[in-house]
């Protein structure tokens, strides 16, 4: 083994892989990966619900951003009106709960705009989504400048799983990954499984897929295409809203302009990577964001041997580029995945096509 690791380039790559596996299993990095992947996975769920019923949603980014702002502001207002001690479970306060509810409402509200533009008005769905992104960015920046909050309602706290379970050899890290996180991150796996089951095992799921593949046929057998699409887009808004709430009420505790930073688009790529299935999209989200978490891992637990020396050398000479490299990896992976997978990953047949019921005259 040691002889193998001494081969020039291959050895380096092997060393890195060994290090990666080691840091994920023993480095307590798994919860960070889930945390980074949470808004991506929730955004991808929003995308799956939309696109399975034939509505393209480029506006997830804007929905997330707007919800993040609303979540933060509502939580702050409630916090200032009714200050309360954080409870022992997740550090929950009434303010945080109200913030999450408001975020979901905001997500649904913007989804309504997207649904109206793309289903009823039959506007170009990609332009509709882009307009939502532009408007959300402008509106949140405007409000943020206007009010400039110096206070915060705090954040949800992460759960502390019993040490005995975390330290289980081999699988402890998996257990830690899904429990040593806040409530929204913890709920993601539940939502993913529920939507996966409903989409492929329920009457609603069958109808959704029918409308997304062949709306005319679905209409012929008595499914209300317009109503089903509206319902799905609005339900997608719930997940986009939750993703926004995660950013301000669980991950950071503050709001910055354009804090979504392209996550809505990475979510779309995760959805395409997962072939429009919730489980696949979740896997994509984990994979994309793991690349960003590696940067954190190397900082927390630098690899030993010449690999560590090599990385430390780069960081010393090019600190900014070194940091930006890890920040940029998910974006790069998104492009690579789109370029490599999209040809073989087939979207719902009616995706992006407005449905017009033929008049009965």
């Amino acid at each position, binding site marked *: 083994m040691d002889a193998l690791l001494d081969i020039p380039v291959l050895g380096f790559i092997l060393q890195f892989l060994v290090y990666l596996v080691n840091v994920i299993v023993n480095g307590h990095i798994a919860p960070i990966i889930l945390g980074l992947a949470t808004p991506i996975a929730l955004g991808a769920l929003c995308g799956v619900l939309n696109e399975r019923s034939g509505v393209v949603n480029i506006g997830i980014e804007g929905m997330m951003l707007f919800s993040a702002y609303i979540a933060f502001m509502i939580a702050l207002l409630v916090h200032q009106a009714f200050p309360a001690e954080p409870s022992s479970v997740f550090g929950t306060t009434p303010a945080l709960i109200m913030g999450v509810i408001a975020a979901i409402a905001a997500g649904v509200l913007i989804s309504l705009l997207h649904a109206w*533009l793309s289903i009823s008005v*039959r506007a170009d769905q990609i332009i509709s989504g882009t307009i939502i992104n*532009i408007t959300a*960015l*402008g509106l949140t920046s405007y409000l943020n400048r206007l009010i400039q909050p110096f206070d915060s309602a705090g954040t949800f706290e992460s759960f502390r799983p019993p040490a005995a379970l975390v330290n289980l050899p081999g699988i402890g890290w998996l257990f830690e990954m899904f429990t040593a996180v806040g409530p929204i991150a913890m709920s993601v796996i539940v939502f993913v499984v529920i939507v996966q089951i409903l989409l492929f095992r329920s009457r609603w799921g069958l109808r959704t897929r029918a409308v997304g593949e062949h709306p005319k046929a679905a209409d012929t057998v008595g499914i209300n295409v317009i109503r089903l699409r509206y319902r799905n887009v609005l339900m997608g808004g719930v997940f986009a809203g939750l993703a926004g709430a995660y950013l301000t009420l669980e991950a950071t505790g503050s709001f910055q302009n354009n804090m979504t*930073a392209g996550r809505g688009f990475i979510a779309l790529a995760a959805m395409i990577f997962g072939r429009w299935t919730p489980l696949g999209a979740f896997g994509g989200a984990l994979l994309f964001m793991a690349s960003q978490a590696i940067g954190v891992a190397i900082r927390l637990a630098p690899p030993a041997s010449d690999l560590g020396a090599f990385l430390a050398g780069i960081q010393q000479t090019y600190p900014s580029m070194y940091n930006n490299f890890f920040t940029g990896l998910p974006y790069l992976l998104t492009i690579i995945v789109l370029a490599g997978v999209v040809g073989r990953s087939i979207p719902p047949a009616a995706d992006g096509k407005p449905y017009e019921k033929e008049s009965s005259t």
Partner: protein
Amino acid sequence: MISRPRSYAGWVLVPALSILLALLVASVLIIASGVIGRQRELDLLLPLVAYRSLLVGAFGNLRGIANTIVAATPLMLTGLAVGVGLKAGLFNIGATGQVLLGGFAAALVGTQVADAPLFIAVPVAMLGGILAGALAGFIPGFLKAFTGAHEVVTTIMLNALIQLIVSGLVNDIFRVPGFSFARTATVGNAALTGFGGTTIHLGAIFAFVCIPLSYWLLWRTTVGFEIRAVGANPTAALYAGMHPRRMMILTMSLCGAFAGLAGAIEILRLGYYPAVFGTSIGFDGITVALLGRADPVGILFSALLLGAMRAGAPLMQIEARVPVEIIDVIQGVILIFLAAEIVVRRIFRLRTTPEAGELQTITRTYGEKVVG
């Protein structure tokens, strides 16, 4: 989108009404800003005060008019960067990244030719920006043509990547000492300075020339016809012996070149490239293109309109205490009304013409097969 409008009156009406409606919606927000902002009072006339200072700031005196033209200059180019793409059925929202790369390249080339005479230094630095922008447009165009990766997602990702790469390069390699922040060396003679005591600079001429140039390209040349044909129906274009893939790559590169020139102009005006270079001209280009219906003449007027808003906003912020970010909100609301053209027509009881709903089928989803 392939044919010229039948009458300009009907063609201009809906954008104009959308602007009007957006200003109405924004006035509600402005009144709200009076209530929750620093003044804490309900002032129903505040929107009038704000819009008045916006107008005065943009057109009130020679300096205001000059500022409007300077602000409109890059917007014409980013408007073309989005608009020409729309003609080919491509939605280029990567103008931001193309602007950054173009500006960065112009700064690097500019420092190399800093001592050359002005009439060599400026065009050479601009050419650097144009080529770099074209490269930034080529990548998503190539990916779209040969893998089907949707340009909306790839260009947004490239925006983030280019920003990270360029700021990393400036911080680690091209930083010059002696300043409190990371920036490149000065571009010397390649800098764009105002003439006649105003802020208007040479770049404005380049931008104004690009408008008739792209009009000629789109409507008077074979390439332009192919671009529009591919935008209207790639399959039909293929069977007519055209090359949809080649056209997609060419169009995206051209779009990137326009945005790259815009970035070059902005950076050469500044004189150096700062590691943190925030600019809204990339996203403003989307508004300009959609408001101008992807037509060069329309883009010229929407760029002037948006430039006026950008130039007048600071005075509005001082006099009416309305944050300049209100311009971003107004843009978004204009776009919502434009997209809902049918609704605007219904509000004003206009007849629905064949041109109505032009925004409906410009772009293609990633569901569509790659043709070519």
